[in-house]
């Protein structure tokens, strides 16, 4: 089983949306500032529900906020 990398543009989107702080965004989606920081840094992959909530805050589809890259090569 190969590993995966889930990256995201949350930090960039926060600054493009009125310089939202991690605390403010965390409150809007129901997670702590520390959890949002872990998500931004790629240390923690959020649940699908939390990922959708984050995308909803920015008014973007999920794939424009989170990017999935498989470490396995193409078959």
């Amino acid at each position: 089983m190969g590993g995966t990398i889930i990256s995201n543009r949350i930090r960039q989107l926060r600054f493009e949306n009125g310089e939202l702080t991690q605390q403010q965004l965390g409150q809007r989606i129901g997670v702590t500032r520390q959890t949002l920081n872990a998500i931004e840094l790629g240390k923690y992959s959020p649940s699908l529900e939390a990922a959708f909530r984050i995308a909803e805050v920015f008014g973007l589809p999920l794939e424009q906020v989170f990017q999935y890259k498989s470490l396995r090569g193409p078959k």
Partner: protein
Amino acid sequence: MPFREKSAWVTLFAILLVFALFVLHAPRLSHPTPGDFHALLACIGAFVVIETVAFLVLRLRYPEDARTPIDEREQLINLKATRLAARCYVVGSFLAVLTLHHGASANMIGYFIVLAFVIAEVVKYSARIVYYRRGA
């Protein structure tokens, strides 16, 4: 540092302190006395007091953090740490029962099971701290 990581540090130190006091005051496992049992009860009482006071101090110092509901990452951290602790407790208890075959008395086995429980709790709170530090 998140509020729940601070709580984990407090609990870890409280467990280590109280258990160290117990070991210092009731070291004669091979010849236990009723006083040892009373020392164990006193340690449990001391632990409850330390935890309650420390938790109240933390709540008063960080009221905003204390009110924040637990989120999905913190739930995951708790579950992973508890799973690890449960395994330690099962293994420890099994080893404690095995000492029966090496001539351990019922009292000694009881104390070994308490030891397994303490180790499991130390593992649980240490694991929580590590997971908080690592991200999840």
